[in-house]
């Protein structure tokens, strides 16, 4: 069942001059965890605030549990919120902060204690419950803010940058806890983030937003492996994807991409789409390939690309090799154990099955004729 649905939603500020959100359509199923991902200014916070009822919708409709909620106040919407700025009551203990949503609903003290204990256990804050917000770390405050949002049953839980104030390690721990709670309690959750790693790790589906426009919505794997356009391809993944300008050549009935004085065979399943795109030898295309899908060539391999080691970095759990080919730099991510000297000659091989092809003018990905990526 659709829990939340946004239909043709727009948000304008300053009497229509600033378009923060443009024609947004998306929906959330019951029990789903959706991430809205994008750089600052992409419209993700505006979207969240419109759903929460903190900001008015300029145009379009928002439905919760099948009913339009455009004109309901924030209070009247059955939505729980946890914000980046934790907004805890400074004079109340963490316990009372968490208990607050139950207290104002007139729940019995015994019941409140039971509920607070349950949620505090899940979020590892049981031993700091008697403290005031000012007496605990930012991480504890963030957990408390989340606990306060999760303590009451709601149709939808909205989380705004829920991990932003934590260090790397706390973040990975907290991430696991949030996802465990969401899955085991079967909560419907929507969170916004600018951190692509966080979105990939947490979400069932990700909506990528840029300049108020939805770029793509899909599972983490779809977003990572089959980005719809150059923006998504570039925004997601670390180290970032390599982009290489190339030109198309047709030989007999096969297409090859010419780059750096090398010709790479374009996989068979692209034949039809290349046929459509090709306007003669020299048609420009943009190739995208992730550092993890480039290998050091084995002896005797063909379709290799030769270059020189620009720099090699051993970062413990992987090796990042940057190869210079003419004026271009290509980044390769290798498993631990490699070592290279600056300037050393090196041959690399692209995993042709993993190469993505983009229209350099529109930035759209050119899809193969068949395969699961064609959806």
């Amino acid at each position, binding site marked *: 069942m659709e829990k939340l649905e946004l239909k043709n939603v727009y948000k304008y500020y300053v009497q229509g001059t600033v378009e923060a959100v443009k024609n947004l359509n998306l929906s959330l199923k019951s029990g789903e965890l959706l991430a809205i991902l994008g750089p600052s200014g992409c419209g993700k916070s505006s979207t969240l605030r419109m759903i929460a009822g903190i900001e008015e919708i300029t145009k379009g409709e928002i439905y919760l549990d099948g009913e339009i909620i455009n004109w309901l106040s924030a209070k009247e919407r059955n939505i729980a919120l946890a914000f980046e700025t934790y907004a805890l009551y400074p004079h109340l203990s963490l316990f009372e902060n968490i208990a607050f949503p139950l207290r104002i609903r007139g729940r019995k003290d015994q019941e409140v204690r039971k509920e607070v204990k349950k949620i505090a256990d899940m979020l590892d804050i049981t031993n700091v419950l008697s403290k005031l917000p000012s007496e605990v770390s930012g991480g504890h405050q963030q957990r408390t803010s989340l606990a306060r949002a999760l303590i009451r049953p709601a149709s939808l839980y909205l989380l705004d940058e829920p991990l932003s104030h934590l*260090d*790397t*390690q706390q973040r*990975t*721990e907290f*991430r*696991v806890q949030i*996802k*465990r709670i969401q*899955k085991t309690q079967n909560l419907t959750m929507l969170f916004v983030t600018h951190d*692509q*790693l966080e979105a*990939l*790790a*947490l979400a069932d589906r990700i909506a990528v937003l840029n300049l108020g426009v939805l770029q793509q919505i899909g599972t*983490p*794997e779809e977003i*990572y492996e089959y980005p719809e356009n150059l923006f998504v391809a*570039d925004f*997601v*993944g*670390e*180290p*970032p994807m390599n982009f290489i300008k190339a030109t198309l050549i047709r030989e007999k009935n096969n297409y090859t991409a010419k780059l750096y004085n090398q010709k790479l065979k374009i996989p068979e399943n692209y034949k039809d789409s290349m046929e459509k795109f090709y306007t003669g030898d020299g048609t420009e295309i943009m190739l995208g390939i*992730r*550092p*993890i899908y480039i290998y050091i060539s084995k002896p005797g391999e063909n379709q290799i690309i030769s270059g020189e080691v*620009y*720099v090699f*970095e*051993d*970062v*413990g*759990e992987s090796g*990042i090799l*940057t190869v210079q080919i003419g004026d271009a730099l290509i*980044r390769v*991510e290798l498993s*631990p154990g490699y070592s290279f000297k*600056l300037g050393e000659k090196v041959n690399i091989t692209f995993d042709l099955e993993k190469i993505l092809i983009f229209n350099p003018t529109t930035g759209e990905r050119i899809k193969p004729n068949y395969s699961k990526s064609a959806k």
Partner: protein
Amino acid sequence: MEVLRLENVYKNYGKNEAIKNLNFSCEEEELFVILGPSGAGKTTTLKLISGLEEVTKGKIFLKNKLVNNLEPKDRNVSMVFEDYALYPHLIVYKNISSPLEAIHLPKGEIDKKVKEIARVLQIEELLSRFPSMISGGQKQRTVLARSLVKKANEYLMDEPIAHLDAKLRYQMRGEFKRIQHIRKMNILYATHDFREALSLGDRILILNKGVTQQIGSPQEIFNKPANIFVANLLGDPPTNLIEGILKVKDGQYFLQIGNISISLSKSLADELLSKINQEKLVVGIRPFDLHCYLKQEENMKILNTEVYMSEIAGHYNIISIKLNNTIIKIREEKSFKVSLGDKISVDFKEEKLDFFDAISGNRIF
């Protein structure tokens, strides 16, 4: 040759001991990294060396000369700050030459130095542009050029690329490493980012709460962490640490973790026993040294355990399992797909284990 040496250096702010008995030295052409979390004392250390802060106790030598009582300007060190403001009304050339003009160097010499550093940093063709006309990465290189154009005994860099976005940081880290390869400089580099430290450092000092934890090459630090703190600081996810008890039964050695026992070879157990005086210890293993299997085989170390969490970390998956109330993280290929609650078996090679003293946290061997 030794360029910088700290001997028994302490720094107190009132009752707060920011630096406790710090000892290290930097060689000519060495890039020496201080790695630690915020509050470790990294910036304080740089300030003590530059003379912006006074040492409470101990000695600082630059080129074998005691500098404790010298003014910052007389120490001939160059401090590169995190903040990278360029003069917007000056072209790149003038931005870089400003420190040399301030000391009234002859014009010809200034020109030579500016062009040389611009060539090393590959910004020669930008020299006549204004800062507003160049990219973020080029601005960063211009700032670097301005700091490096003046000759110094030691260049002190405090998180020089920490505030850049992830993409630019990747790029700058590589550029920086290459520049250091080509033109060896004396650099003391403070960071909280373990990848930066491993990538750039000739040697790394790990600092926590003002106390040195370990000094060594990147390989030593990553592969042989001196204690639990160091093990936990490096890697994403960091090393898994779990308490266990060393046990003998019928001549067989086991590591008891909760109700799971993992058999150990006799040679390893003997070596452990010769070095510990209690049976409790902490075991460490890196997430990429653990491997998941859907089918169990008898000799696997951890059989039939439940998937606690499965996350996509871009180009690989992180699978978590729970072992005696500790969450263990495993880095697996993207093709290994499981969901919450699925049963898996986990295996690893014994030699990949690190052992730490359960009380002191120090490495046993």
